[in-house]
């Protein structure tokens, strides 16, 4: 078994090296490679642009860190509202459906425009004038619509017999949701949730259209000054440096949870 495993790794390694060498060869020998290299892969531009772009990227991280927890909570609330039974709750359910349909349908960039330029322009007293603030609001509204659908799918996937078992113990509907249905639903939808959060991280770059200097905006400033596109690579590296470890972390948490459930706990 060990020997076969070693062989498989060897073959995988060899074929990977062969494929990438081939691809690399094709790119490097393309007629325009020299120009592309100096325009997109210039080490000196990469190095010179990095500190400022990294600094601007902090704004992306900040936006993301504020928006994500709000989205997680708000989306769950909306998913729960959509699962309320009975005619009494029809108006609430209808509102939740209309909201999800609307904000999933409009392009994110338009929502950011509408909130970022529209609301401050109203010049209302006591309303924040910061465009970044309203950009965050727009991102929260768009992503809450997506994430509420993910939650709803999770809630629907928990078999009704689980709810029946909880209710049969005398738990109220809200208690059955809180202790039995939602914990199981959330565990099931962690991978698609993560998917939406990677999307959100990338969409923080859209906030730049309002004038805030986040990473992508800084890239454009640098490009305009030097006519070199390497700065985009700086930003790409920064985004990937966050999303890939996050993905691995969640994979790890999911598999640990699975193991914990399947391995007998040591008796107390």
């Amino acid at each position: 078994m060990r020997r076969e495993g070693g062989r498989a790794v060897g073959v995988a390694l060899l074929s990977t090296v062969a494929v990438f060498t081939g691809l690399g060869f094709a790119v490097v020998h393309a007629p325009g490679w020299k120009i592309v290299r100096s325009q997109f892969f210039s080490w000196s531009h990469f190095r010179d642009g990095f500190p400022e772009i990294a600094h601007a990227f902090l704004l992306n991280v900040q936006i993301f860190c504020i928006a994500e927890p709000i989205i997680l909570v708000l989306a769950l609330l909306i998913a729960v509202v959509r699962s309320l039974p009975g005619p009494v709750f029809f108006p609430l359910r209808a509102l939740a459906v209309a909201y999800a349909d609307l904000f999933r349908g409009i392009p994110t960039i338009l929502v950011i425009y509408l909130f970022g330029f529209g609301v401050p322009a109203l010049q209302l007293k006591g309303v924040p004038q910061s465009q970044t603030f309203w950009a965050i609001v727009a991102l929260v509204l768009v992503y809450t619509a997506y994430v509420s659908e993910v939650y709803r799918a999770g809630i629907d996937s928990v078999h009704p017999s689980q709810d029946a078992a909880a209710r049969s113990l005398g738990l109220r509907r809200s208690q059955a949701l809180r202790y039995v249905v939602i914990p199981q639903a959330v565990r099931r939808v962690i991978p698609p949730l993560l998917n939406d959060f990677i999307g959100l991280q990338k969409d923080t770059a859209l906030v730049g259209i309002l004038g805030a200097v986040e990473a992508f905006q800084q890239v454009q400033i640098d490009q305009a000054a030097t006519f070199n596109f390497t700065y985009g690579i700086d930003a790409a590296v920064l985004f990937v440096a966050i999303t890939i470890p996050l993905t691995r972390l969640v994979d790890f948490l999911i598999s640990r949870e699975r193991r914990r459930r399947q391995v007998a706990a040591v008796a107390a």
Partner: protein
Amino acid sequence: MSALTLEGVHKSFGTNEVLRGIDLVVEEHEVICLIGASGSGKSTLLRCVNLLEPIDSGRILVAGEEVTARGVDANRVRSRIGIVFQAFNLFPHMTVLRNVTLGPRKALGLAREQAETEARALLERFGLAERALDYPDRLSGGQQQRVAIVRALAMKPQLLLLDEVTSALDPELVGEVLNVIRELAASGMTMLIATHEMSFARATASRVCFLDAGAILEQGPPEQIFSAPREPRTQQFLQRIVEAGRL
């Protein structure tokens, strides 16, 4: 006062009338076995008693209180009536101990410590003490069903409903669950049991009811139902059970 009284209970799912006027009186400490073919309404009857399904007409009284009346707090009623399901329905994301303490803590408002002490005593009584911190996935079917019974008992119910609790088990695991029910019967627990285990019903029931097409066609002491059934439909049903080698 009877533990449970059903008067003219009707229940339909769409155009399908599942219960067509059930009348039944269960006295305290009685063990009633409901027998009958699949689809005769046994499970629906139990779910209606526990208010998991609303009834269309008729009345259900638990210890003299009409629980199907308007304005009755269904949660309070359910916390007094235990039910155990065919498919166990344990909560897979909780340990055995948390499965058992959830109801007492959240529905009865017991402190965690007290709920856990009582739960551990019950688990001990049914040979599950070592499993308290396991997740349900790690247990055999028989153990899972015993945990489900303990979970119902932790609420100290006045009445226990058992819905074909051995039907999903491998044959060699049926015995351990039936033993638990026999012990409960001996300790005086009032029970309403839907079952296909005829020998068990014969030995344990104080009364056997034969359900046919949503009505109680015949009821009486087990010796009479199993040895000298009056109704042709009952005879037919029992004949099929005997042919299948289950009696």
